């Protein structure tokens, strides 16, 4: 297969098309406009629907309507637009609609900037809207992975009747790499919930209002049970953790820089391992737990003021020290900066946790 040279945003759109996405709704925002623009060219050719909405609010509700009919549908946006969609995210989760949302995030808070940032980690993984709910969140680190994970997102969304978010950023969205756009065979799941017209059956209802005694609790317990079941989908990239005194953790596009620093340190003989969560929710705790020992230290590197570090701390559960190397959104760090911090971490005396 001849590789294509495409941007991350285009790889996401191609992954969605390969997975059989039939409807795209969105509102323009930098740095993700390649997604709607590619969809506007390609979807109508394939008998699908492209519709530019009057706002992100409208776009995400069009997504809700399309998803409720059992059709594969998506939207994409960037940080401020994702914030605007937050109320409906809660409804998508409550109605258990399979829908795919892409956040090519940018710097915040407020208007912030349009550079790469990982400041939306909390928003993506903890639920931006109201109530107890989660999206399943996938975080690609390469153009190829952006394609693969987007395609997978549609299967996971249907498998769990669950909204899925692809969380990436301007760095991955805007850079070009070769992509092998392999053919994808979408999985099929029963859709006995979809609103397709009550032909020969009673009307179906998709609702989230539960006023009867105990109803809402039961509803929430059911959702939580599903979120626990989704743990079987957790994925992470790991290397060099055996005998490592320091494990460097990062996610998404930043790992391209982090990995280079880790590899340099390893080539120089430093006992450094690497752990990259690919699913951000559910968080891949089971990759962390066996590595959490008093003699091991974790260094979490993020392109924000420190968000994933909280999940790492929960995952290691006080059994190892966790440090943060945070780069608030602006310029990107160099591998050298991270490499220097790795060396500094290793020079520190062994953890006080050891006794």
């Amino acid at each position: 297969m001849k590789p294509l040279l495409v941007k991350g945003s285009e790889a996401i759109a191609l992954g969605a098309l390969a997975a059989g996405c039939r409807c795209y709704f969105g509102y323009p925002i930098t740095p993700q406009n390649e997604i709607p623009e590619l969809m506007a060219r390609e979807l109508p050719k394939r008998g699908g629907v492209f519709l530019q909405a009057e706002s992100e609010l409208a776009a995400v509700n069009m997504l809700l309507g399309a998803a409720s009919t059992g059709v594969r549908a998506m939207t994409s946006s960037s940080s401020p637009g994702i914030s605007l969609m937050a109320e409906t995210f809660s409804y998508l989760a409550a109605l258990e609609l399979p829908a795919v949302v892409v956040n090519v995030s940018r710097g915040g808070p407020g208007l912030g900037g349009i550079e790469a940032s990982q400041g939306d980690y909390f928003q993506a993984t903890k639920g931006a809207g109201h109530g107890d709910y989660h999206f399943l969140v996938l975080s690609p680190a390469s153009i190829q992975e952006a394609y693969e994970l987007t395609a997978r997102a549609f299967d996971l969304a249907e498998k769990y009747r669950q909204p899925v978010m692809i969380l990436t950023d301007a760095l991955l969205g805007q850079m070009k790499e070769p992509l092998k756009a392999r053919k994808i065979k979408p999985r099929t799941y029963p859709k006995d919930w979809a609103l397709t017209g009550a032909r020969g059956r009673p009307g179906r209802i998709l609702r989230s209002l539960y006023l009867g005694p105990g109803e809402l609790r039961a509803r929430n317990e059911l959702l939580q049970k599903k979120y626990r079941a989704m743990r079987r989908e957790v994925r992470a990239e790991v290397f060099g953790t055996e005998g490592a005194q320091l494990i460097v953790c990062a996610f998404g596009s930043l790992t391209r820089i982090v990995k280079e620093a880790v590899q340099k340190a390893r080539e120089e003989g430093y006992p450094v391992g690497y752990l990259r969560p690919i699913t951000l929710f559910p968080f891949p705790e089971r990759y962390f737990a066996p590595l959490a020992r008093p003699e091991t230290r974790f260094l979490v590197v993020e392109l924000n003021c420190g968000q994933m570090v909280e999940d790492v701390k929960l995952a290691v559960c006080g059994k190892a020290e966790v440090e943060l190397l945070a780069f608030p959104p602006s310029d990107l760090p160099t591998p050298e900066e991270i490499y220097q911090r790795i060396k500094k971490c290793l020079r520190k005396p062994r953890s006080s946790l050891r006794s």
Partner: protein
Amino acid sequence: MPKKAQIFPSVLRERPFHYCPGCHHGIAHRLLAEVIEELGIRERAYGLASIGCACFLYYYFDVDICEAPHGRSCAAATGAKRARPDLVVFTYQGDGDFAAIGLGESLHAAARGERITAIMINNTVYGMTGGQLSPTTVVGQRTTTTPQGRDPQHYGHPMQIAEILASFPGVAFCARVAVNTPKRVLEAKEALRKAFLAQLEDRGFGYVEFLSACPINWKTDPVEALEKVDELVETFPLKIFKDLS
């Protein structure tokens, strides 16, 4: 003795309405059910239950129904209709849902000429939350948040949504109706039928606004409420504003 089917629309579920005495939702529901039945579209119907007194739409209609967040029914209806054009999609919204929080989605769906049918129950107040000011509260009308009456210096004048929508080329049928007299009930049903035909014949956006009574929040009894609807007609004329059939 007439058969049950003749007096009770098959599209309605046999369940008592939760609406207050004298509320017009019940009549609007019945008309909608009759029109769906008579047009033979029950098996293609897709309804959106919006936030407000009619959020329990799905308890009463035996058709596929999805809930939409407050104000977003026309956007969700757009998504459903575009995804499956064979569905006959309708929204059922109040004046707060359609014309306040959801005005953007409502107007843009109409401007695009979405092949959907939007029903707006205009009772000039927020019914479910206890009778607050709405975009269609008339000048001088007392509500819980305009205890001295709506002051146009402070809140401006009520919005005449049917008149606004009629100016959109994408709107194929647009009418304001009332159900406070038997004659008007029959006219309202005919308007609903035409608003669905606009969709079924692929002509454009169909809109029917019901000028409706809310005796509880108007602090009237049901009979007085019928008379008050007549007063509201001065601000909200009953009319077919547009019919491109």
